[in-house]
């Protein structure tokens, strides 16, 4: 069986988005609501700066991946939840920042 070639991500290199966000708003110590977190790729990049994070995503499978990856990296201040912004029923708020990450 031929070895699968790993393609580059179509997202920016790690750290780029967090640097750009921090030029506009500080993330340190903030309570953050992330809408459309996908597999938690970006969430894990800024979670250690934040106080707490609630990250939502409609895709159950992606939330499972996000939880596993966060646990593997020792990220403990993120609550990953299945949901959409339109049907948001949240505990853990209010939030200092609501982040829409590639979630058009």
């Amino acid at each position, binding site marked *: 069986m031929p070895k699968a070639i790993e393609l*580059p991500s179509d997202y920016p*290199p790690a750290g780029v988005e967090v640097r750009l966000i921090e030029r506009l708003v500080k993330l340190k110590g903030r309570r953050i609501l992330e809408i459309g977190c996908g597999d938690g790729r970006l969430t894990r990049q800024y979670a250690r700066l934040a106080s707490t994070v609630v990250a939502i995503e409609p895709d159950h499978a992606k939330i499972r991946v996000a939880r596993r990856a966060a646990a593997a990296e020792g990220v403990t201040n993120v609550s990953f939840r299945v949901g959409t912004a339109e049907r948001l029923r949240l505990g853990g708020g209010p939030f200092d920042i609501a982040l829409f990450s590639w979630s058009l």
Partner: protein
Amino acid sequence: MVHALERARQHLVPGGALVFVQPRRLKRPFIAVTAHGQRWPVTGLTSPVFEPLISAAETAIDGLVAQRLFVLIGKKNHQFRVRLANPSQLDGYLHTGQRPPRFPAGGRSRLQSLWKSRRPGAQIEVTEYMAVIAMRAVNKGSA
């Protein structure tokens, strides 16, 4: 999108911030062939599904400012480049997303033509464009 923004706003503290990370509306991913520091432009890609969504999102964001619910903190544009070994990898890369972009008319044949005459060590480069937009909620009574 408008409903999503409304719902998010309800969960913010007074003076809280909305932040958007998204593709740039007027900048399409751009393909080029590169080799040894030289660059041969091929074409920009189109995304008939994605582009109306970006426009709708930016209209919704503009609407929040127009309604004086938020004030713009700022916007940062950024571009990054991804390098691929060959057209087959490019096709794989373009289909990693849920809404793959398309070549405009003549774009793919230009790529094939440039790729056939490529120099040793040539790669395909995709330039992607993104924006970060931040807005602050206007406190009731301060607008």
